[in-house]
């Protein structure tokens, strides 16, 4: 489903070149649960951003569902993101002005989905993630765990093929982190593809496939 071949990403910082990714080759099948671990600065986030079409690689080829997305125009990338990819971030990134429900609805609004259809999906998601009582609360009135559940519901509202999570538990206490992990694992159990960046070995170990990155390259790829 995801096929990366010879992917490289170079940042230039003050005349110096930083190789965030070097010659990354990676195949991810539909329905996989993959964790990416490694020291800070090893390129985990950069890899996730490339897979998530938020960042363009400087070298290599990226096939998503058999289609070469390496050189697609920006607007087309946005459309693919909208329809196939869901993001969950360490710092939730909820819009503070909007209620939980409105935040969850946001991708559907951007996609121009019919309001009646939106309401139906929203209702299902609110129920599924235990957010019904919190639907009209602002993010500032929610706990960290609730915020991340809203973010996950939002990421799933368009029914994406792949869910990308960059340290989704990094900003949560242990107990809440377990909670969020349970939610993510449920998504995977439902047949979704889940790619998870984490620093927590315990959480990383829960994935069937564990990628280890060092210095921009894949240093290990364990499949259970």
């Amino acid at each position: 489903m995801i096929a990366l071949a010879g992917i490289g990403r170079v940042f230039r910082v003050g005349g110096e070149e930083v190789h965030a990714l070097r010659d990354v080759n990676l195949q991810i099948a539909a329905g996989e649960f993959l964790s990416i671990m490694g020291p800070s600065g090893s390129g985990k986030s950069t890899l996730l951003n490339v897979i998530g079409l938020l960042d363009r690689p400087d070298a290599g080829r990226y096939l998503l569902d058999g289609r070469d997305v390496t050189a697609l125009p920006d607007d087309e990338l946005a459309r693919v993101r909208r329809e196939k990819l869901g993001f969950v971030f360490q710092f939730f990134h909820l819009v503070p002005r909007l209620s939980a429900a409105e935040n969850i609805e946001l991708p559907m609004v951007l996609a121009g989905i019919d309001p009646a259809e939106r309401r139906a999906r929203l209702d299902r998601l609110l129920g599924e993630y235990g957010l019904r009582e919190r639907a009209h609360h602002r993010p500032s009135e929610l706990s960290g765990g609730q915020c991340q559940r809203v973010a996950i519901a939002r990421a799933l509202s368009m029914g994406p093929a792949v869910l990308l999570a960059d340290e989704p538990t990094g900003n949560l206490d242990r107990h809440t982190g377990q909670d969020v992990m349970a939610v993510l694992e449920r998504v995977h159990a439902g047949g979704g593809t889940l790619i998870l960046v984490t620093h927590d070995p315990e959480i990383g170990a829960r994935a069937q496939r564990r990628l280890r990155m060092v210095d921009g390259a894949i240093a290990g790829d364990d499949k259970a």
Partner: protein
Amino acid sequence: MRAADLVAFSWNVLRGYGARTLLILLAMGIGVAAVVAVSAIGEGARLYVVNQFGALGTNLVIVLPGRSETAGAMPGVLVGKTPRDITLDDALALKRSHAIRRIAPLIVGAGDVHSGTRHRETPVLGSTAEFKDIRGMELAQGRFLPEGDPRHSTPVCVIGTTVAAELFGAGAGETRALGEWLRVGDRRFRVIGVLAKQGESLGFNTDEIVIVPVAAAQALFNTSALFRILAEAKSRDQIPAAKSDIEEIMRERHEGERDVTVITQDAVLATFDRILTALTLAVGGIAAISLAVAGILVMNVMLISVTQRRAEIGLLKALGATGGMIRLAFFTEAVMLALGGAALGLAAGKLGEVLIGQVYPAIPFSAPLWALAAAPAVAIATSILFSVAPARQAARLDPVRALSKR
């Protein structure tokens, strides 16, 4: 993205940043209100002047001695030799024209007016019975100058209310002026009428004049020359015919010399109209500069907003918003602000118009239609124009960088 969602989203942003929104609405509103109020004042002044000319009498054609270089303008500077005087016979000859309903010769001078021990200096007008109708004058008491041969002098006069009050008793009400004798210079006149209060009418305050028969005025000021001839055309359409008739008759009588100026009320009016319209446009334009200033404020605030909402814009992109959608969201915001500001400004401008109308009830303040349409249009155009740069900046934001900064 659906249009309704776009509006709802922008509405949410505007509500979320209330202080910012109010600030822009205020700036926009002041700009629009300024244009509306200023153009209302200009238009009021224009209408006031036009009405004043209207009060001068309808279908009026004025003949004055001397050839003015700038035709149609005010009595110009005379060039070359002293022109031939216009006489009473010239005036009476104009009655030949079929385009003219009536004429009134006019002599103007200043006279020392006495009644018993009281006296004052007033303008003294010499004319005929028809003067009253040409100028649309009303009488408060008595009657106007008698009909009859204008070459004969009768010792009667008609006086303004102020003159009546000052010379014949206190108070503005009924005076004992009627039938009394009045001395102007070394001649005596019997008061046969008192003019109704009318006030200023371009040049003269009719409340402060004394009107005597034209022949009497000629003797009084020791001149046979007329100051002016006022002629009334039979209708508006007849004004040009009246004008050419007058020029023809006067040329005949003056041995082929074109030495009089004939001005029509229309020409004078058109000149004033043009000047005052241009003036209104100019001050309206100056006021519109404040709209441009408001536009710059919009740009500034929007640029700050792009910086403030970096993470949000990055997020929207990660969620699948295209650059175009982001741009559109910013434009929608700008247009909504401009519409709100324009509505506020129109309301404030109208209110201002009513308020100054209360202070100066004589002047018909009312913003012209073009200002009511142009002010909001300019407000919307500037705010769209000035939000182009911020919207582009937002649309170009790199989502990874935007999201990485908390």
